[in-house]
């Protein structure tokens, strides 16, 4: 997959092939500009690749997407946002309100349901963004740098939530530049550099520190 700016062509994704089954969590680690976001956008159907294909069982309706931004309307309340996104994801009208209440309860934002999103703190807004991504009970979760902007406590809470979601038989693909984030959740680990996977393997029994060391070595080798 190629893109270009200023006359130069940049290969954003190259020779990336993988299949994930229910219950698997792939953590994609890579430096800024490695093509992680492009990979997720291709999986989400936001970018059409020049060559090759990406298939997600169930299509767009099966995907929960958490990008760099919350995708929430600042002047609508949390509840109004969730009802809107539930309608777009074809959640039956009769169960939207119940589903919104349930997901807010689960994420601990039920008491903020009637507050406009612009009035929420960064941590609460991130939870509301996760609630938005979960409103239709997606089978596949695509997370792009989901820990950005979260303080340590909020990041730990988010990791616990992701662990629960993975346990519910979902496929999770998580992209981040920080190996310390998400390594412990992963069942599979990939290191990405300049659009290519330079490492892709089941996590096995590797500890996050071990993965971090392998990441440093792999990217050092790839860059040499």
């Amino acid at each position, binding site marked *: 997959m190629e893109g270009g700016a200023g006359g130069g062509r940049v290969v954003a994704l190259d020779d990336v092939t993988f299949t994930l089954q229910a219950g698997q969590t792939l953590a994609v680690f890579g430096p800024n500009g490695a093509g992680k976001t492009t990979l997720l956008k291709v999986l*989400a*159907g*936001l970018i059409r690749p020049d060559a090759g294909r990406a298939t997600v069982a169930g299509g*767009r309706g099966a995907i929960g997407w958490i990008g760099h931004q919350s995708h929430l309307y600042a002047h609508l309340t949390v509840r109004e946002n969730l009802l809107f996104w539930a309608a*777009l*994801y074809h959640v039956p009208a009769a169960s939207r309100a119940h589903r919104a209440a349930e997901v807010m309860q689960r994420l601990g934002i039920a008491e903020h349901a009637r507050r406009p*999103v612009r009035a929420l703190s960064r941590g609460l807004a991130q939870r509301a963004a996760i609630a938005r991504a979960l409103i239709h009970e997606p089978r596949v979760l695509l997370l792009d740098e989901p820990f950005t902007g979260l303080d340590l406590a909020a990041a730990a809470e988010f990791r616990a939530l992701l662990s629960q979601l993975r346990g519910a038989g979902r496929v999770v693909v998580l992209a981040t530049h920080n190996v310390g984030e998400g390594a412990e959740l992963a069942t599979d680990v990939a290191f990405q550099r300049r659009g290519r996977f330079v490492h892709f393997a089941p996590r096995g029994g590797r500890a996050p520190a071990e993965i971090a060391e392998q990441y440093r070595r792999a990217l050092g080798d790839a860059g040499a």
Partner: protein
Amino acid sequence: MRDWLSQAWTVARKDLLLEFRTRTGIVSALVFTALVLTVFNFGRDPTAVPTIDLAPTILWVTFTFAAMLAMNRAFQLELENDALEGLLASPLSRTSLYWGKLLANLVFVALVEAVGLPLFVLFFDVPVAAVLLPLVGVIALATLGFVAVGTLFGALVIRTRFAELLLVVILLPFLIPPLIGAVQVTARLLGGRPLSEAGGWLRLLAAYDIAFVTLATLLFPFTVDE
């Protein structure tokens, strides 16, 4: 069919709710309309050119530029927190997204016109009572065409640096045919001429609507997809 219409209505309702909450777009457009009509009212010399000759042009210039505010605003709503990316990642069809934006823009522009028309009558003292129904019909016919094109171009320019300026520059040439048609039909109506005299212009407006609503619906996905 029913599904995409229902999804389009979901998008339109959300846009209107946001507008109702913030009121920035509608207030700006209404103030703009009132100011332009006021300036034209006090800036003209009624002894030099009869009001009835100037009025149709003033009405349509005012409506066109007020509508630009709506068309700029439609996709700007989606830039906050990059909601547009969320919409494009969802199962919402591009056609539903376009029609949702078109519907919301039509309601927005219709509100501006509903306030602008009485102000126009008040300022210019033109006899509209006898031709109110056909006049509203002509306004609806012309508005549909230029809002359809404006909504498409609004999506096209939204990720550019000077979106507001660019929209005006690329949109105005496309608005010339419906503007001329609308001015011609309005002039005949306000001049007490039979509507049959404007048959050609009415057909032009209808053809423009059909052509550009269809084209915009077909081309819209290419403006938002990467």
